[in-house]
């Protein structure tokens, strides 16, 4: 088991209803983590319904959904960025 800080931004934060949580997981990739979270409650399932609209960062670096979570402490989920 691995203890992760999970952080959410923008409409993902709003749909899930919290900005940050600690989560114990055996997930090896962000994709597995998403499946685990989506199975918890409807609000997670809803937030992750369309993964093409979700981006992930591992320890504050953009990553792919099939990247490894080994050694990672913070996972962030958020929509495509709209700065500038």
């Amino acid at each position, binding site marked *: 088991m691995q203890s992760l800080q999970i952080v959410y931004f*923008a409409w993902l934060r709003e749909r899930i209803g919290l900005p940050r949580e600690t989560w114990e997981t055996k997930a090896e990739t962000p994709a597995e983590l998403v499946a685990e979270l989506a199975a918890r409650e409807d609000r997670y399932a809803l937030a992750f319904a369309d993964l093409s609209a979700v981006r992930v*960062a591992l320890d*504050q670096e953009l990553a792919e959904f099939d990247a490894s979570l080994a050694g990672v402490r913070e996972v962030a989920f*958020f929509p495509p960025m*709209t700065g500038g």
Partner: protein
Amino acid sequence: MGDLQIRVQEAAFDPGALLSDFDQLAARSGAGAVVTFTGLVRDLPGGGLHAMEIEHYPGMTEKALTAIAEEAAGRWDLGPVLILHRYGLMRPEEPIMMVATASAHRAAAFAAADFLMDYLKSRAPFWKKETTEAGDSWVAAKAEDEAALDRWRQG
């Protein structure tokens, strides 16, 4: 490599005051060309924007902007580089962000500023939300912004 200035702040800022300071730094670095981009809060096509709120990812934001500035400094021979981006609540017509680049010649200064903006748009963790009488809505990312990155992937 010139001085890289990265600022992420809630406070309003004055693009003119930043340019005055930047031009002095640029001139002392031997630059002959300075390019700036300023992003302003724009009203909606039909009007009615009350405010724009920008959320960001503290920690990652600074890292992402630094990485983008370093990438630009590696691609072009630049003097100082500035990236400033606000978060929090702002009103229509207020400046949201600014980038400034300096180089000996204009082609590099233009290309670097254009590059910084393309990467900042799609790779720096900022999210805009628009507030109107009808409610709040998150600004959708544009496919053209992601596509703009392809311009920098070859050559």
